[in-house]
């Protein structure tokens, strides 16, 4: 079965290239090709994950027949099987949304699939330098995708993302360099042994940990290093915001967890107490600062972006606590956050497409105008706050439980505090949607330069893509203020909302599947 692992990376890359070549001549084929690729990728990911969880053994593949530790190794175990499936499934779901919402071009779908390839690569690799290369592939695709918005704002957001992201990846590379100088190897499993041999007291080893964690923290967007993230999310087209908010930081946070557990190991954390404190403090500050900044935002997409800063603080804190309950919570929250945040960005995009509302003040009485989307937005918001039985609650519960088990009371308090702040910034949206009546607004069209208008403008260029939907007039008229979201867009958002609720109870089934992997990773 392990022969399938390289296909997880190869399938999206091949799909991206075929899509680019074919789409150059027949632009309308780009979307179906991307869907076929993504379907194949999802099936593959699901099959690999099934094999891993059913077999209880990690799958491993030596690329090019060069045996590790000299060659590059691809590994899928219980920890990253979930991430692999998440990447494939979310990418497929957002494709359904992007069909109408755009951006509509063959180049967009190529970038999209390259991003998926990069993310899959980061998830499956067992080699540090390979992780760096996939980190940069992911980064390059993400910068290009953010810039697909048709205003100048997205280009500025993307450039800022590029400069900060590159520094982050470079610091990660310095960290790898230090570890390589200390041990002479790049394979993760081999590094774990040799780093222990060099000794955790060595300055070289400690410095490499600091650089690797800081580099990945930039990519995950933890608090003082998050500056690229709000503008990148807010300025990107809605489909792209959803994709990168759901996956890019998620996979970076996974990589951080993987590096902590598989390269430096829990032994390092317990013998170098300062390293654990460093990560915990970074995460704790991120949890609080992200929530506080989110409360202060008026633009909905920026608010969601700052909310991510806080939620990833939670995940990283879970990895640093490093006991069974906390790591289970971290993985659950990683997956749950991706579903919820992706769904939230899509819902906000669809609401903007229907009503033009992008700022908190414009959400008054929205439930009357867009009942279904408002219900989905409210469900996802409440799940994010952590109302049981939704997945947002389960993840936080396990992390808090882990913090208490390890006697890390400050972290438990921080989690509680951030939940209250999360309630504050999501509840004001829900309150406005359901309990206020819409104020008479003058010419909302002037405000919106977002997706609504963009979808209409682009839809006019290739209107043949609108064959099977109920309102064929959309995209033809030049003076339509706001299009309304297609059935596909609404369906994806509803699925995300349902998943956010349904995944919660399923965690008890998932937990025993994760257990053998955790035993292996967390053994003292």
């Amino acid at each position, binding site marked *: 079965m392990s022969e399938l692992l390289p296909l997880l990376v190869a399938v999206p890359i091949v799909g991206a290239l075929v899509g680019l070549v074919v789409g150059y001549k027949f632009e309308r084929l780009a979307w179906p090709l991307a869907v076929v690729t993504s379907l194949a990728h999802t099936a593959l990911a699901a099959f690999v994950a099934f094999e891993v969880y059913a077999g209880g053994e990690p799958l491993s593949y030596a690329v090019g027949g060069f045996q590790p530790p000299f060659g590059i190794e691809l590994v899928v175990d219980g920890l990253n099987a979930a991430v692999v499936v998440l990447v494939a499934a979310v990418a497929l779901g957002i494709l359904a949304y992007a069909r109408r919402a755009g951006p509509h071009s063959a180049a967009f779908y190529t970038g999209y699939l390259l991003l998926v390839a990069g993310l899959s690569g980061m998830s499956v690799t067992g080699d540090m330098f390979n992780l760096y*290369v996939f980190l940069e592939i992911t980064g390059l695709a993400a910068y290009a995708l953010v810039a697909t918005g048709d205003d100048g704002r997205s*280009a500025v957001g*993307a450039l800022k993302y590029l400069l900060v992201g*590159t520094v982050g990846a470079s610091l990660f590379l*310095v960290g790898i360099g230090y570890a390589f100088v200390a041990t002479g190897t790049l394979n993760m499993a081999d590094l774990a042994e040799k780093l222990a041999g060099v000794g955790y007291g060595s300055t070289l080893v400690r410095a490499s940990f600091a650089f690797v964690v800081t580099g990945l923290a930039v990519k995950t967007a933890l608090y003082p290093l998050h500056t690229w993230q709000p503008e990148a999310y807010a300025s990107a087209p809605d489909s792209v915001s959803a994709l990168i908010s759901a996956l890019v930081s998620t996979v970076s946070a996974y990589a951080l967890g993987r590096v902590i557990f598989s390269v430096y190991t829990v032994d390092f954390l317990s013998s170098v107490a300062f390293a654990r404190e460093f990560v915990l403090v970074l995460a704790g500050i991120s949890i609080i600062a992200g929530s506080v900044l989110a409360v202060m935002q008026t633009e909905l997409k920026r608010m969601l972006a700052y909310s991510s800063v806080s939620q990833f603080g939670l995940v990283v804190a879970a990895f640093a606590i490093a006991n069974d309950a906390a790591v289970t919570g971290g993985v659950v929250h990683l997956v749950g956050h991706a579903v919820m945040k992706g769904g939230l960005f899509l819902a906000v995009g669809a609401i903007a497409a229907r009503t033009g509302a992008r700022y908190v003040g414009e959400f008054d009485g929205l439930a009357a105008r867009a009942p279904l989307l408002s219900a989905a937005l409210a469900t996802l918001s409440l799940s994010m706050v952590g109302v049981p039985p939704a997945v947002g609650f389960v993840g936080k519960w396990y992390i808090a439980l882990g913090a208490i088990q390890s006697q890390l009371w400050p972290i438990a308090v921080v989690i509680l505090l951030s939940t209250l702040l999360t309630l504050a910034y999501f509840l004001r949206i829900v309150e406005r949607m359901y309990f206020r009546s819409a104020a008479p607004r003058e010419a909302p069209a002037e405000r919106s330069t977002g997706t609504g208008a963009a979808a209409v403008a682009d839809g006019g260029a290739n209107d043949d893509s609108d064959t099977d939907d109920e309102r064929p007039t959309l995209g033809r008229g030049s003076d339509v203020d706001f299009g309304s979201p297609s059935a596909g867009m609404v369906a994806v958002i509803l699925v995300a909302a349902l998943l956010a609720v349904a995944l919660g109870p399923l965690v008890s089934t998932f937990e025993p599947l994760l257990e053998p992997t955790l035993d292996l990773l967390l053994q003292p």
Partner: protein
Amino acid sequence: MIWELLLTRYNYIVVALLLPIGAYMMIENRNLVKKVIGMNIFQTGIFLFFITSAYREGGSPPIVGSGGEAATYVSPLPHVLILTAIVVGVSLTAVALALIVRIYTEYGTLDEVNLREVRADE
């Protein structure tokens, strides 16, 4: 002591100079293109660090047969890694310059401060 460091470890001194110079340029320079140049300098510092780590005293090129069985060879692996990293760096520079071209067409300036002023009016 310092002389010895300068004479034998000068590569590391250059690395320690290149990294802050690049970082300072990215933060302090108002011109967007020069920020990208700063990014390149920063990366070059890292490349030099890797290449230096491959050096062995009296080592010959790592080609089988060039020095015989017992000879010391320099480590070929960092060279290969940095070849990859250079390709990544070139791609990053290309994407960054493409974005800068778009920003210039949109706002007519490459200056960070002017850009902020122009965008504040949006």
